[in-house]
């Protein structure tokens, strides 16, 4: 072993004074970086018992498996929930109607959905702006023209855009699900202002959004019983897709990468053995030169 190593490295590795200053510095740097990462990880794993907020439990989402896609039946219902409930206050600015095609609805259906909205277009020949029915390429119209209007209509609280809300909040899908289903009476000592509602999952508990999800709050077109948890689950799964449009593609890519890794592993092992046979089978001989007498 030492002999083959020596042959490859020209005996460099076997010398005792190998560690130069640069290498020692590099080692120090590595140890420091590893230590800091471990510290950050440890801090993140702490109990977090001091904040005044309930931590959402981790639910068993159907899309949690490493190969599991989003459930498109649920996405379709989730769009229904957004359209009939959340869209009264929340925008979905970064989603266009065309994104729904082939995900939740067929092209014809999305065209019909878009045509129900009126969007502003223009200018026309006279320079005036006019309203026309929505088209596939329009983004989904927002309920309020600007933030001030949204605040004025909601007691000063601003309903955030929901497109990336799952990625924007920590433990997104569990947080939003818990938020939607977690309303309860405020405990003693907490006073709420006008237009505030108590929700233990919201920091400080006073949320500007009333409870909007109840059993049978909407009726699903596919006949699924619209219990409160079903409605919340469907809208969260839909928002998960809105935040991660490439979700299914990623899961498919996982299969491809693992499969290709399995195929190339034996090839790489074989290749390594081919390359190393000469090294491993080389015998070094030391023939001392005796002086002729």
């Amino acid at each position, binding site marked *: 072993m030492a002999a083959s190593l020596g042959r490859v490295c020209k005996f460099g590795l076997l010398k005792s004074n190998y560690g130069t200053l640069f290498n020692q510095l590099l080692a120090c740097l590595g140890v420091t970086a590893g230590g800091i990462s471990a510290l950050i990880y440890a801090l993140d794993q702490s109990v977090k018992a001091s904040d005044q907020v309930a931590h959402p439990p981790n639910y068993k989402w*159907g899309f949690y498996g490493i*190969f*599991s*896609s*989003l*459930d*498109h*039946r649920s996405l*379709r219902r989730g769009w229904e929930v957004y359209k009939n409930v959340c869209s009264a206050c929340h925008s979905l600015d970064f989603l266009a109607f065309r994104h729904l095609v*082939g*995900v*939740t*609805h*067929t092209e*014809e*259906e999305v065209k019909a959905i878009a045509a129900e909205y009126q969007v502003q277009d223009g200018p026309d020949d006279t320079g005036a702006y006019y309203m026309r029915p929505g088209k596939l390429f329009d983004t989904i119209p927002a309920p309020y023209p600007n933030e001030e209007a949204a605040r004025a209509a909601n007691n000063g609280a601003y309903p955030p855009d929901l497109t990336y809300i799952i990625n924007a909040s920590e433990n997104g899908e569990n947080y939003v699900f818990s938020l939607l289903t977690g309303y309860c009476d405020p405990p003693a000592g907490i006073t709420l202002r006008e237009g505030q509602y108590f929700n233990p999952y919201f920091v400080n508990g006073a949320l500007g959004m009333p409870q909007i999800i109840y059993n049978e709050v909407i009726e699903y077109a*596919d*006949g*699924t019983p619209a219990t409160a948890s079903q409605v919340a689950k469907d809208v969260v799964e839909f928002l998960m897709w809105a935040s991660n449009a490439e979700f*299914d593609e990623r*899961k*498919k890519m996982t*299969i*491809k990468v693992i*499969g*290709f890794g399995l195929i190339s592993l034996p090839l790489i092992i074989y290749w390594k053995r081919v390359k190393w046979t000469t090294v491993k089978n080389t015998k070094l001989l030391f023939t001392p030169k005796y002086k002729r007498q």
Partner: protein
Amino acid sequence: MISRFLYRYIFKRTSSFILSIVVTSVFFERAYDHACEEIFEWINEGRLWTHIKHKYDNLPQTQSYQKRYIEERTSDLEEIPNEDTKED
């Protein structure tokens, strides 16, 4: 025998070697993507859009010939509601 053949016609010249790499990668990639797609759809049976599309997609021009053929010939039959095909 086979190795002699491979050597003479593929590995011996760089040009034929490269050509063989290009040709096999085209076919391999096509087959591999297809296989992975099948596995993905098998794992997520019933959850993907391709699996539920047929419920909403009833346009005559997008239907396959066979489906249209069957539907044209069975449209006058009475439909009996079936509990099993109801969605969950």
